[in-house]
């Protein structure tokens, strides 16, 4: 192998590269307008007062002067910001060194964040709407490490640069692993042919570099279409929106490794994802119910004015609820539009978003768990969401990233899939997980779990019941006070009104509590009947059923600690709660199943113990 050809780099080793210049003016404009908007909204009271004062003639101003001053102020502010951002831009650069990637920033306090190539785990990029218009994006490099790992964020890179950067980082990682980092050769990015034979070692390749020896591909035609694609109507606009690379986007860079599996969302999958997504429904229901309960109490006050208010308020409530739901759905639609998941080499990549675009990937070795979740609605129609648990970087640089959904749900690889197709999706994306336990392998929970589940869910953990009990106690005290004559009423009519209000609220509270308790009871029955657990040599499967269901498939290697815990009631029936702690999420994630037989719990702890042949 002494004749090995070098890896070809498209970034010069040791050279300082700067981020795109649009950082200087796109950033400030967004910042200034956001600030202006906030001042306007926050100070709305003040503005109204001012307008009133002007109208009343208390203050004499020339409107032209005011507008002129505002414009001038904005220009000065933008100018200041541009100056600041320009300074920041001048002091911001990234370097590919021989063994590590560094990002320099800071005007006064100089900062340098570096990631050794060997520790690069995933290179993701996301672009906000405005960034997309200009074809720039923010690249996040996640490194291996515990829960304390910090991602490096490189802002405002051209799409082309971002893609090349990802290729480069993984190539350099491979080069370091092969001990060839010193023989990197600087070249230009070239398009590979659909398939080419390496002139050096004869390997068949589709990547830009030979997978065997790192020789660059000859210049040729575009890559062949990837297999297995589903399309949706928003993909139809892909030519305009999906593939819009923006003003500075540049040419598409081809992936370094072949795609072995790819899927998207079909039209009806996308639509149903949107309709059945639980977040918009939950938010809308919360908003709606809050208003309805408020109005119900208003109605209980038997007063003409209150009734009129309620009468007019109901359509408004329905309107607000529907608007909240639709607004939430549009958000989901936009975030899952043009959804793509593919398996490329050892990585699983997800691209999504119609306006703001996000591209993130995870190495198969870094998958902490496979989560299959069904919300209540999706359970009714037999669909579920498949996601991969991953360790999220909780770095200070990610503070601004308020994408909490991604943090709690891991990497969603399919937002809406029929339950019987889940295995196909997982096998396509991660053939490594083929020997995972299936649903049919599960051991159901013992009989005692059923009674305990009913008690636990309908009594102990039933918040609705406890609120109702609290309200009933309050009601009882009030009733005692009125009956004993502590409270005096002005007239018999007001007494009657008061009684009607109290009776009405009592019925309302009891009814709401009853509905919730019945729901919890049904959930408990489903949970006790269908929940199961299983483990084989390499995987643990915990299935929590109920109105909504959750499956966790956790590789044994990713379980950081196995735990069983029991309370006195469980001990009497010799049951334990089984817990598996993984490093997924920003801190850690615990998958658990309540009321597993104690012997199974002990066997589980034995299974967690390392298997050594010595």
């Amino acid at each position: 192998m002494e004749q090995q050809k070098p890896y070809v780099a498209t970034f010069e080793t040791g050279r300082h590269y700067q981020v795109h210049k649009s950082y200087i003016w796109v950033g400030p404009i967004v910042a200034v307008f956001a600030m202006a908007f906030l001042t306007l909204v926050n100070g709305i009271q003040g503005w109204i007062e001012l307008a009133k004062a002007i109208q009343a003639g208390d203050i004499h101003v020339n409107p032209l002067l005011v507008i002129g001053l505002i414009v001038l102020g904005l220009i000065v502010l933008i100018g200041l910001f541009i100056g600041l951002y320009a300074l920041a831009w001048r002091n911001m650069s990234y370097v590919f060194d021989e063994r590590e990637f560094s990002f320099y920033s800071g005007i006064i306090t100089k900062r340098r964040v570096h990631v050794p190539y060997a520790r690069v785990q995933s290179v993701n990029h996301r672009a906000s709407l405005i960034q997309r218009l200009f074809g720039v994006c923010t690249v996040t490099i996640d490194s291996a490490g515990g829960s304390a790992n910090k991602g490096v964020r490189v802002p405002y890179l051209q799409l082309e640069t971002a893609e090349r950067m990802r290729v480069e980082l993984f190539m350099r990682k491979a080069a370091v692993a092969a001990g060839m980092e010193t023989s990197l050769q600087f070249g230009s990015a070239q398009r590979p042919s659909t398939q080419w034979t390496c002139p050096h070692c004869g390997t068949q390749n589709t990547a830009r570099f030979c997978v065997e020896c790192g020789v660059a591909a000859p210049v040729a035609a575009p890559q062949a279409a990837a297999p297995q694609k589903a399309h949706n109507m928003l993909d139809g606009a892909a030519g305009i929106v999906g593939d819009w690379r923006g003003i500075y986007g540049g040419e598409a860079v081809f992936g370094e490794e072949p795609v072995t599996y790819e899927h998207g969302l079909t039209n009806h999958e996308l639509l149903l994802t949107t309709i059945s997504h639980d977040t918009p429904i939950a938010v809308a229901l919360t908003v709606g119910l809050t208003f309805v309960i408020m109005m119900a109490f208003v109605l209980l006050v038997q007063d003409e004015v209150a009734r009129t208010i309620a009468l007019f308020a109901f359509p408004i409530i329905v309107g607000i609820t529907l608007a909240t739901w639709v607004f939430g759905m549009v958000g989901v639609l936009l975030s899952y539009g043009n959804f793509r998941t593919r398996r490329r080499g050892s990585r699983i990549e997800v691209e999504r978003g119609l306006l703001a675009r996000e591209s993130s990937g995870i190495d198969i070795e870094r998958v902490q768990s496979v989560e299959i979740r069904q919300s209540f609605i999706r359970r009714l129609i037999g669909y579920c969401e498949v996601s991969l648990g991953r360790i999220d970087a909780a770095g200070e640089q990610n503070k601004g990233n308020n994408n909490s959904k991604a943090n709690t749900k891991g990497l969603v690889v399919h937002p809406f899939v029929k339950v019987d197709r889940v295995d196909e999706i997982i096998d396509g994306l991660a053939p490594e997980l083929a020997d995972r336990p299936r649903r049919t392998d599960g051991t159901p929970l013992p009989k005692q779990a059923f009674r305990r589940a009913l008690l636990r869910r309908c009594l102990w953990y039933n918040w609705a019941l406890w609120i109702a009990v609290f309200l009933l106690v309050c009601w009882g005290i009030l009733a005692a006070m009125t009956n004993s004559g502590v409270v005096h009423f002005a007239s018999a009519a007001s007494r009657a009104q008061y009684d009607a209000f109290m009776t009405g609220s009592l019925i309302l509270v009891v009814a709401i509590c009853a509905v919730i308790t019945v729901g919890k009871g049904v959930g408990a029955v489903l949970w006790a009947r269908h929940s199961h657990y299983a483990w084989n040599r390499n995987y643990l499967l915990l299935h929590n059923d109920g109105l909504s269901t959750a499956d966790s498939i956790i590789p044994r290697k990713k379980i950081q600690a196995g735990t069983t815990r029991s309370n006195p009631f469980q001990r009497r029936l010799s049951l334990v709660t089984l817990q598996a702690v993984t490093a997924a999420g920003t801190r850690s994630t615990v998958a658990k199943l309540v009321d597993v037989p104690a012997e199974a719990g002990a066997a589980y702890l034995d299974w967690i113990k390392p298997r050594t042949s010595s």
Partner: protein
Amino acid sequence: MKEMPANQLDPRVKAVWRINDAIWITIIGLCVGVALTPIAMIPDVGMWPFAVFGICMLVIYIVWLVVLPPIRYARWRYEVSTDYLDIAKGIVWRKRYTIPFIRVQNTDTRQGPILRAFKLASVTVATAAKEHEIPGLDFEVAEQLRDRAAELARIAREDV
């Protein structure tokens, strides 16, 4: 249930727990006491709310300083085998942890002022997800345990 892990903590840890809990209970008690003072302003109430409060505090002190430490001590057990750490603890909610050394990222010893006064230390074993603490070991034992855990974590290999 499986047999319990072999090792117990150092008996002196009970004194550490007592001092630690006494400090916390006193601080919280003082806060609640201060919050209760407006009651004294209400006429015709007298001192009985303070008497009730005092009795509650006394009960809490007895439970946490006299009753709980020996039980907690008896329930707290650990065992360092060649390739995993076994911890059992908890009085009402009994927990049992198995932490394979191949998942351990770092181990260290910690010493607060109270632990130091008793020449004790706690050993912390951290995985990628959580930290597990074995409190109150003799300083020498803690050092040995840390070194051993670190060594085991370093050499631990698994046949998969």
